[in-house]
């Protein structure tokens, strides 16, 4: 087992998952990819992660729903996880809606990986 900190990456595009994996590994994190919103919570219950990177447009449950469930979780380690949303805002959510869903920060696509790395480092 590696002792690197783990980040859950909820994203359905392999391109983004692999690019994110490479970049975060370079920054000394491991990632746990999840491609369907329905699997996010299960994965969090089985793995210890330090942060969640969440695409808003996910198959299954969308990123907004997932974030709300994380915040409502009875386990404080899970409910307090920092959540960074990634979005092209296809569904036109407002900032207020993001905040209400419990999302700490949100980054727009196209992703700027320098910004992603700095944002993650604000939290872990």
């Amino acid at each position, binding site marked *: 087992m590696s002792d690197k900190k783990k980040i859950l990456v909820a994203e*359905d*595009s*392999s*391109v*983004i998952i*692999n*690019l994110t994996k*490479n*970049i975060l590994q*370079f*920054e000394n994190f491991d990632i746990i990819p999840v491609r369907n919103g329905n699997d996010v919570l299960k994965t969090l219950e089985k793995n210890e992660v330090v942060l969640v990177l969440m695409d808003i*447009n996910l198959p299954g449950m969308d990123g907004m729903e997932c974030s709300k469930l994380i915040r409502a979780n009875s386990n404080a380690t899970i409910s307090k996880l920092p959540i960074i949303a990634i979005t*092209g*805002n*296809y569904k*036109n*959510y*407002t*900032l*207020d809606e993001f905040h209400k869903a419990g999302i700490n*920060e*949100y980054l*727009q*696509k*196209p*992703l*700027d*990986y*320098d*910004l992603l790395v700095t944002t993650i480092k604000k939290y872990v």
Partner: protein
Amino acid sequence: MTVEAKKILIVDDNALNRNIIQNILNNRYQLETATNGLEAIEAIQKDIYQLILMDIQMPELDGISALRQIREEQLSDAPIMAITAYSSDDDRDYFLAIGFCDLVTKPFRPKNLIEKVTIWLEGKHPSETTSAKSAENKASVLDEQIVNQLSKYGQITMIKQVYEEFIEETAQLISEIEELTHKLDLSKIGEKLHIIKGNAGTIGAMQLMESAEKFEFQVKKEIEKDIRQYLLDLLEKFNYFRSYMSNHSIFKNE
């Protein structure tokens, strides 16, 4: 696309309005404020803005006079968007005719404001008025700055793999879109275009991103017309990107 900061000047005499706009936009952009036309002109002389949001009725110097002075004295060529309580089509035509790029109406609706600001700052949803501008900043097949930025994080083989995967995934998505055009399932087409757009932008395939963006905009408006045309354009940009990459140094230096 470069990562340079986008700066917006908000000009409104009403503090509440300024606050609302700041709250809506401050996660995305650098913001400065001015409380009337004169202050706006001072600010523009000191700093460069990519967009100006300008209230119409203000003390000292109103929005229309300020716009006129900015244009006459060529103080800035940033688009200037009117903030107004008026909203009939006639009013809209009037504001556009005197040189505002667009208008946002009070009370502000966040989605609407973000969308309009994004259109003008990121060059999305190109309309007739932006065509001159987008011709100047012609999108590149591959934004080398993004390649360089990504290269900091890994070996060339990693970069190579990223682009290979992107090409593979995009080919798959385009063939799915093609299927969907026969069924005219616009909402599914939109979702897939959205993935292509985001990924293309992330890895720097700017022409492809632009093509996907225009196509997405069209299907979001639920316009079936010209879908074939948009699909062909997307395919053309994709094929071009693919052949461009096969000759790129990332794929040659081994």
